[in-house]
């Protein structure tokens, strides 16, 4: 519910998304058998909420989600004539590798911000840091990720 709320900032929409998520899980399990339920359910609710967000943003914009998605946008180099588009699996693999090399704080902040869509303020409150410090840290992580992906020839 919190992930959906972070993305949509609307309780009614979020509740609908969570219900959709339960339905999808009901239909998928079995045959799918996720090892961990939280990431599995989280990924579904994230996708459902983002779809709803795209639908909603025809009329209005959610500042936090827009800002978060724009931040993600900056991390991936644009495709050039030299590089080839890489399949999503490869990008996921690269992201896992990137996360593996991050220090503990950066790792947690990255996942909380870009997977859970937490706002800067909630991150600051949760981890007892200043919002400015978190902004700076995440800004550096994004630049790092950009360089990391670029070095691996990943572009879109």
């Amino acid at each position, binding site marked *: 519910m919190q992930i959906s709320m972070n993305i949509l900032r609307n309780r009614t929409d979020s509740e609908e998304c969570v219900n959709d998520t339960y339905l999808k899980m009901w239909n998928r399990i079995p045959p799918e058998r996720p090892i961990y339920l939280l990431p599995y359910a989280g990924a579904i609710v994230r996708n459902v909420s983002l779809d709803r967000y795209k639908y909603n943003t025809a009329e209005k914009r959610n500042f936090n989600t827009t800002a978060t998605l724009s931040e993600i946008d900056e991390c*991936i180099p644009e495709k050039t004539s030299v590089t080839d588009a890489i399949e999503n699996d490869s990008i*996921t693999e690269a992201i896992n590798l990137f996360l593996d090399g991050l220090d503990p704080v950066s790792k947690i902040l990255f996942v909380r911000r870009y997977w859970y869509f937490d706002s800067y303020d909630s991150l600051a409150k949760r981890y007892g840091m200043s919002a*400015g410090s978190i902004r700076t840290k995440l800004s550096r992580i994004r630049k790092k990720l950009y360089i990391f992906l670029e070095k691996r020839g990943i572009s879109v």
Partner: protein
Amino acid sequence: MRYDKLNESIGNMDSQYILLADEIDSKEKLDAYIKQNRKNFSPIYKMLSVAACAVLIFCGITLSLPWFSSNQEVDFLAPTQKEDRNENIVAEDNPMEEDKYDQNESLYYADATASEVENEGVENITQDTTMPMEDDMTDSVSDTVDPPTYSEEKEFLFYGLKIPYSDVYVQNKGKYPEWFEPYRDTMYNTKWMDEIVGENAFAKYQMYVKETYGESIFSYEPLLYNLILYYDIPRETVETYCKEFTQQEINALYTDGDAVNEVFCSDCAVYCNGYLITWGDLAFDDENVYKSMLSSSSPNIIERVYQLCLKAENFFAEDPLCQQANLQLMQWLQNQ
């Protein structure tokens, strides 16, 4: 949109990170995780510990041999050999004294190894096994200045900043101890942080950035700002170690945000509501972030950011997306 693809990939990231971020939901847990991670972090440290343990056993056997032999009723040695041995013991009195430190060091590593072995596989390992490094640090610093007290997190970040280790650095004749290397490699940007304390720190930083990134916007990030914001460095640390900064500059950093702009950010960055806006940020961040941040700012700050956008225009020309964002921000600023 480009982010669709990356966002989808982030959505599929390994479950371990998602579970981890879910589990670490407070400052206390984050501190504990940092502590644990630091301990389990370095394979080199573990290898060193194992090696030190082996050395300790070897030294223990070697050193106890003369004592053991001299206290035995049965004399295993021929008379001449015994004399030689006694002579050697006398002659090696001083070297043995000198070796004391090494032995202690070995003991110390061996202790850590034993603890690590005992705790292997246990998630919540106690602090003891990490303390040796911290003890080393404290010992090194205590002869010079009393370091400020830090929380666990800051202490860790303190490693990245390298201030206490500058003493370690000096005592190791210009070379960091091997066990410190993994920390240097994993802390973001520690390479330049190695250089920031001491004489000509800012010039060294600029040189490092230039070598690393070339002539890019990154070279305009004001040094001390970023350090203080990024690491929440206490004022007393800056006062103790960053001698090249004047009292006026330090006062500005810790008391008055606008004064920071006057002192440090003449034309390359703007300090606003606890956040430093640099050219680099303007290039990468969504303009909405700044609209929100600047909506309650003074005209002076607005003007400064506008000037920053103007200066950044040339750089943004290389990237249409950034250029567009910059233009939109400039238009918004003009209307304020």
